[in-house]
């Protein structure tokens, strides 16, 4: 700790007072809007639940997702089988929990691929401008003008289905979107005075991109990343539904929903409950992502 006597003589009281007044008062602001935090808090809780379920599925006291019991086939929800059973008597709750693994993996990996590559390319384009920007923007426009589902199906058809390929394909589709977003933000931040100040202190382009631009673009990109994670999960669901995702015995949310459609009259819960899980997860990601996005927008202004 610093001794009081070590303070310089002109450690001006005025500055300290101003600092004290400018410091945000967390108590009063949280009191004013705590009720608005409830939906966000619930979304966080749900996501936490899904993530824990996906990570520790094999250690949780749930039934095996692949144990076939023909006697208990096509049951509705009960204490033993919370979500009921499918036509082979497999526990649908366990399959939903294990299905979260596929969905979350696809969501996270595809977003990371898109964010890292698209973000890097976009930041470079937005800060350097000129020819580099023209070229990158041209490529991005071409990629964006492709109908994405067609491109996705073509990619999967060409490379084959499977978790890795789905992740790569979805990540690839995300690249131009992140690139655009990053480019726009990098342009704004590139014009800020602290970037000029960094140049004035002899920083090169790489150092400015990495130290000044990237950390300022990242919050916005990751907020959008949460939103687009939900999109990736939905698309994976659609692909599973079409039978283009993971191979059959591995449970996935889209696959569960697809499997239930032939039995919608006997056990509608087979379709409904996994759909609700998917819906809640997507909604949570959207709500949290949207909240973060707004927060960073306000924050960057002040």
């Amino acid at each position: 700790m610093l001794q009081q006597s070590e303070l310089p003589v002109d450690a001006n009281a005025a500055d300290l007072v101003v600092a004290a007044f400018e410091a945000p008062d967390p108590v009063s602001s949280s009191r004013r809007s705590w009720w608005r935090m409830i939906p966000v808090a619930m979304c966080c809780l749900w996501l936490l639940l899904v993530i824990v379920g996906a990570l520790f599925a094999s250690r949780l006291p749930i039934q095996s997702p692949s144990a076939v019991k023909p006697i208990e086939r096509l049951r509705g929800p009960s204490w033993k089988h919370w979500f009921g059973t499918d036509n082979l008597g497999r526990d649908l709750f366990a399959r939903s929990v294990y299905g979260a693994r596929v969905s979350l993996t696809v969501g996270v990996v595809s977003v990371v691929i898109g964010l890292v590559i698209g973000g890097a390319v976009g930041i470079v384009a937005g800060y350097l401008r000129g020819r580099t920007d023209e070229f990158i923007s041209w490529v991005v426009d071409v990629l964006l003008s492709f109908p994405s589902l067609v491109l996705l199906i073509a990619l999967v058809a060409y490379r084959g289905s499977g978790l890795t390929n789905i992740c790569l394909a979805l990540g690839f589709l995300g690249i131009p979107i992140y690139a655009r977003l990053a480019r726009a933000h990098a342009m704004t931040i590139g014009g800020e005075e602290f970037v000029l100040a960094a140049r004035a202190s002899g920083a090169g382009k790489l150092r400015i991109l990495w130290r000044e631009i990237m950390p300022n673009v990242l919050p916005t990109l990751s907020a959008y990343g949460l939103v687009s994670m939900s999109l990736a999960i939905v698309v994976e669901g659609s692909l599973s539904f079409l039978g283009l995702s993971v191979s059959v015995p591995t449970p996935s949310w889209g696959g569960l929903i697809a499997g239930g459609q032939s039995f919608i009259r006997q056990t509608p819960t087979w379709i409904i409950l996994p759909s609700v899980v998917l819906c809640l997860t997507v909604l949570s990601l959207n709500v949290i992502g949207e909240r973060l996005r707004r927060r960073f927008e306000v924050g960057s202004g002040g």
Partner: protein
Amino acid sequence: MADQHANISTTVQNDDERSEPLLVVEDFAVRFHTRRGLVRAVDGVSFELHKGKTLGIVGESGCGKTVLSRSIMGLLHDPKVERSGRVLFEGRDVTHLGRRQGRSIRGTEMAMVFQDPMTSLNPVMKVGRQLTEGMKAHLGLTPTQRVESAVRLLRSVGIPSPERRMEQYPFELSGGMRQRVTIAIAMACNPKLLLADEPTTALDVTIQAQILNLLDVEKRDRNMGMILVTHDLGVVAGRTEEIVVMYAGQIVERAPTAELFNAIRHPYTEALLRSIPKLDEPSGTPLAAIGGRPPALHAIPPGCRFAPRCPYAQRRCFEDAPPLTSDASVSAAHTFACWYPVGVEIRPTGGPAVEPAVGPSAGTSARPTVEAVAR
């Protein structure tokens, strides 16, 4: 290199300074190619600066002072920016340095303090990191040495408990504190030249004097040359050795500080001085504003650029541009660009003279002195 330097010193008009100037700016011009035409932001500016001295560049917004200071730093290297003339730093031409050479000069040899400390610090980087960033690139110290030297710097710019501040983000500091931090960052690699571009404009009046004093102390301790860019004659009055007044990209008056305030020659400088509100005036006295606006820099009219706003303008002022001359009988160091300088009775009587809207300050007793306007 050596004869280059010899050439310069012959053109130097400053007699009492025999040493090599730190910075020489010779007939320097910066032009931007825009859609509306060629914008002459800086047009034929020359001055010099010695070690341990402060030069004030004064002028209203858009007069080219910021462009001038940034292009001295080499921050305007762009194909769309056309530069001519020379900037010599310690006798070395730094006008057309390559990217790498420019980078090695910025930060170590020349440093800059910006106007708004709210925007000139990176909001997502801790203060300590921003301080050590430059040292890492230029000085090659070990991480511990860097932190130690950063703490020392923060203490020297008057920031209490620097160890704690190092771990804070800029938003946790007040405006005055932040400007102290930017000064510490500028000092990090011991520059020989400091360019301060309106360093106090964005600050509270109470903090302004503290920051200016701090800049003064740092300048003296390190024997730096300093260029203080401002729109406020009051800021430069007590803190500079020489003042350059710019208008529409050109120098209109240049003199040692005391001489300038003793005998202002250019009507623009006079008008700038008048526009500073004074405490001893009765309340309700209207502020003396300069009417009109500076000329658009892409379509500069012939003649004196200040003529349309000048209360003393004659016909000649609208036709011929006055050169930068000095009144040798008074002082060779005091130069000004005016056909009818203030305080010299050579105004032609008769003819289609425009009557001055404001009475010329003929009475020397009413003239503001350095002490009166200095902050």
